[in-house]
């Protein structure tokens, strides 16, 4: 397995294994409202990541004792399909998935106006159908859209993107091989309008300057992804919006 690994992750022209520049995002494909039964849903392809997010709620808290008197309880499950990785992954939730469910919930919660729905729950389900590094960030990108699609009042969207370090250079949006052989990974989620970070994790080795560079790079990328998220939402709702515009013209 290790025999065919490329020795270098950057070539002489500074291009990466998949031909990207150091600050280039992988291609994204975003669809909103892909599921029928869920109150809100979104499908995101981020490079070779394929991620589906579904939202149910606000709905009655069950079991009742988990309800909060002044806000909705947000619940989040991040889960990887057994066939999403090179080696089959057991479908039972791993410690990694439990940790990610927590940090993803904490990344999305600041954006949700949960105080409008006391005694109820909002459930967020993220299924990773294919994993290729950066699943938590792509999961956040998808889940934020699913929440918006469910009509849940939000302060704004949340977009996620990682930066990292390969062959001694800070680069954006690591792919699987770069994540495994690289020197550092820094997943970030951003609420772009208020310019605040809601998810921040890091592992590997970065100097303070490299960290600052990586943070700036990933927040810039989050802003780009945010534009794509808005566009994807518009795609689904442009019919509704057109109708609303027409109505506005009539009343004006």
């Amino acid at each position, binding site marked *: 397995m290790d025999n065919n690994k490329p020795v270098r992750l950057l070539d002489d022209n500074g291009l990466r294994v998949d031909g990207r520049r150091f600050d280039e995002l992988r291609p994204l494909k975003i669809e909103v409202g892909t599921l029928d039964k869920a109150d809100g849903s979104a499908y995101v392809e981020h490079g070779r990541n394929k991620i589906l997010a579904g939202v149910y709620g606000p709905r009655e808290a069950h079991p009742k004792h988990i309800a909060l008197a002044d806000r909705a309880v947000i619940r989040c499950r991040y889960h990887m399909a057994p066939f999403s990785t090179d080696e089959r992954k057991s479908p039972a939730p791993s*410690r990694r998935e439990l940790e990610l469910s927590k940090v993803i919930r*904490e990344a999305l919660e*600041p954006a949700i106006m949960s105080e409008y729905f006391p005694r109820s729950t909002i459930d967020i389900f993220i299924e990773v159908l294919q994993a290729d590094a950066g699943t938590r960030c792509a999961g956040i990108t998808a889940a934020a859209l699913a929440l918006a699609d469910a009509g849940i009042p939000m302060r704004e969207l949340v977009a996620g993107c990682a930066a990292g370090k390969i062959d001694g250079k800070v680069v954006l949006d690591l792919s699987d091989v770069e994540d495994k052989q690289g020197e550092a990974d820094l997943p970030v989620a951003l609420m772009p309008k208020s310019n605040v*970070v809601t998810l921040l994790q890091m592992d590997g080795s*970065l100097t303070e300057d490299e960290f600052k560079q990586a943070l700036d790079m990933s927040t810039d990328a989050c802003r780009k992804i945010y534009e794509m998220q808005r566009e994807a939402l518009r795609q689904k709702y442009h019919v509704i919006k057109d109708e609303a515009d027409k109505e506005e013209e009539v009343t004006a």
Partner: protein
Amino acid sequence: MSATHQGSPVARLEQKTVVDLIGKGKRVDDRGPLDYRPTTIMLGVVEKANGSAQVYLGKTKVLAGVKIQPGTPFADTPDEGILTVNAEFVPLASPTFEAGPPDENSIELARVVDRGIRESKAIDLKKLCIEPGKKVFMVFVDVYILDHDGNLIDAAAMAALGALVNAKMHAFRVENGEPVYLKEMIPVPMQNYPVSITTAKVDSVTVLDPCLEEEQVMSCRLTVTTGKDDNICAMQKGGGLGFLSPDEIKQIVSTSISKAKDLRAKILSNVK
């Protein structure tokens, strides 16, 4: 499934006192915003463990024990020993802890401590190989939270590091793929000393090393773990529904790096 935590059982009035104090640059326990609580570390407190350390961080008390035993290596690292970090939130440590399988908080803590040790390459895992692909030493670091008065991550990371530095294993030579233990005891091969520094954001102010009362009113926390070369090896934002601006993060990272340096010197002076 990860769910929004129930609110803290602290009275609103008390919460307001804590927040107001921090807003004025003061704290409930008379510290300044960037002061760390008094820290004591005692090594070798459990003789049956290969290594152990008990850490007092203010009133927070954490015990870590290291056990080392042979086992099978992972397929992708056939010539490296195995590091496992686990955390127990023992029910006697806090009225909010319950017996049972680890919850997301203890998993998060264990994984953040694990990342600090692993990513800083604190242990030279190659030296723990007995027979590549067949047998290696497994290092189990078990963290026991004994008294919870806030900032468990830093205390746990410190206890884990102390226990590893304290740990002794039998010297061994390899015969027919099996370890033959010698009388001589050797330390675990350490090559880095990761130290975690956690900062809490309360209102719009950041304070280092939050105590429990401060954790109950914080909007979020950021843990920064650095190695002896001042490189950052692990980070984790968590602890609530809050957010941090990029500038706040950079400021916290900068402060954490210099604080970690002081704390590392202190821990190592205790050890040697």
